[in-house]
């Protein structure tokens, strides 16, 4: 099991390196077209060949990973903030605040997120720029993904409010903000951190699903999702194994995340939460 964990860490470090140094590792820009070489096979200059528009697939994979792996943590940060805010306040105040927050959490959890996501995505203007589309996609993920985490935080905050040290602090005259800052937040940090890490692979997969359905990041900006979309004709019409690399990368990266999430990195925090 230790070996699996080491492999997972190595994979994630390698991916992070590839994402950081995409400019140096990619033979061309993600939108640069080699018009004389559309649908070319792998070669020394284009390790994964080129797509229908003559763009280098290796470059698109590297930049696509950069987009997905940079923005998913930012969306996770937004989700964790919202979860902390709603769940924390619900647990802290209790009573009607908790009931209303729980209703809101139940409401968001009841709506199948992919339906909600494509509904909200469909409302956006058609002429949205690629940069705006990528921002909007990940902001939407962040805004819609907080409910499950908020439930965990609410339960944690509620337990803390019943704990002896919080009672003692309140008896000593600690005010609301001081209590939150000195006692609640430090003790909820583990649960918040766990929710942050758990959200990252969820958002990468969500973006991949949206991208594969054509509702994610707009062309020409690549993302893991939009690269998966290319597989539709690759698998049905022209089976070329190297085109499966984005899918393989996605599965390996997410699996590595899952291995680290399951094997120790977050177990303690999750149990505590």
């Amino acid at each position, binding site marked *: 099991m230790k070996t699996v964990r080491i492999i997972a860490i190595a994979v994630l470090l390698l991916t992070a390196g590839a994402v950081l140094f995409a400019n140096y590792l990619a033979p061309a820009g993600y939108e640069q077209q080699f018009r004389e070489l559309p649908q070319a096979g792998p070669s020394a200059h284009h390790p994964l060949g080129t797509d229908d528009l003559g763009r280098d697939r290796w470059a698109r994979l590297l930049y696509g990973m950069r987009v997905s792996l940079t923005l998913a943590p930012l969306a996770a940060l937004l989700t964790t903030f919202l979860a902390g805010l709603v769940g924390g306040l619900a647990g802290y105040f209790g009573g009607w605040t908790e009931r209303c927050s729980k*209703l*809101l959490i*139940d*409401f968001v*959890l*009841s*709506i*199948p*997120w*992919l*339906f*909600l996501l*494509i*509904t*909200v*995505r*469909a*409302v956006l*203007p058609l002429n949205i720029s690629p940069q705006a589309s990528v921002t909007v996609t990940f902001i939407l993920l962040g805004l819609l993904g907080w409910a499950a985490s908020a439930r965990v935080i609410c339960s944690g905050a509620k337990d803390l409010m019943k704990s002896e040290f919080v009672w003692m602090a309140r008896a000593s005259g600690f005010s609301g903000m001081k209590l939150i800052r000195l006692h609640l937040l430090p003790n909820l940090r583990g649960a918040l951190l766990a929710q942050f890490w758990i959200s990252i*692979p969820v958002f990468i*997969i969500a973006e*991949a*699903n949206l991208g*594969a*359905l*054509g*509702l994610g990041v707009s062309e020409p900006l690549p993302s893991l*999702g939009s690269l*998966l979309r290319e*597989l*539709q004709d690759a*698998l*049905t019409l022209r*089976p070329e194994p190297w085109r499966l690399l984005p*899918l393989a990368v*996605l*599965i390996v*990266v*997410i*699996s590595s*995340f*899952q*291995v680290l999430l*399951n094997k120790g990195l977050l177990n303690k925090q999750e149990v505590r939460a």
Partner: protein
Amino acid sequence: MLRFTGWAILRLAAIMLLASFAGAMLMRFAPGFTSDDQELNSGLSAESIQAIRQAHQADANIPRFYMHYLGSLVQGDLGTSRSLNQPVKDLLRERLPVTLFNLAFALAAGWLLGLALAIAAQTLRWPVLSFLANGLSGTFISTPAAALALVFLLLRLQPAFAAALLVFPKIYRYTQNLLQQSSEMPHVLTARAKGAGPLRVLAWHIAPTALPQLIALVGVSISIGIGVLLPIEVVSDVPGIGQLAWQAAQSRDLPLLVNLTMIVTFVTVCATLISDAAQRRFTRSAA
């Protein structure tokens, strides 16, 4: 029980009211809400175009628009699809059975596989089996539904199997954790120390404590199943609700999309409430 049922119905009503309000607002503020294609029809007279504009302006009043929308919903009028020019009710009648059948299959197969592997890993305690089961669940939990559907399309396998494989990891992981926690409880350790076999311990000591929580997972698994079926139906060209929602999103048919989301939400909330009630009942009878 009566009080619980009352609260459950109230919760359902509140969630549906919130959902309908959010849906109505999305439709109301969507680009192009106040305009109509018919305004471009050169065959219409100026009076007709004016009447169309006035009808749209009446909808600009938000409370009025919401009440009108809610009234239609209560009467079972789900509106007409703009892109397909068909009543939403008819579209649902055609497509809902397909999705429900695939959902039932995915859930049954996913639960069967998840439970079987979790129980086998817990009772047999073979490291190889645990490693393989964890690897399998790890792979499928990391695979986007659309990508797995593509692979299944290539292999010419039934799309419902892909949905089952995506439901399975959640069931497996949750069940395995639950069995693990239950097997460390003092009464289970005592039973084991007294010489009870693994199957007896599982059936008489672990299952009664783990079952109520597993029942609660039924509602969640329905939600997961619906979520994974959408991309699978789109990629595999299955004429279900998921594909209809995607078509509606592509053609920006917001009335259809919002109503579909409302119906799926209703199904999910009902399933969750029923599984909560079952869990409550089971916990009481076990106590």
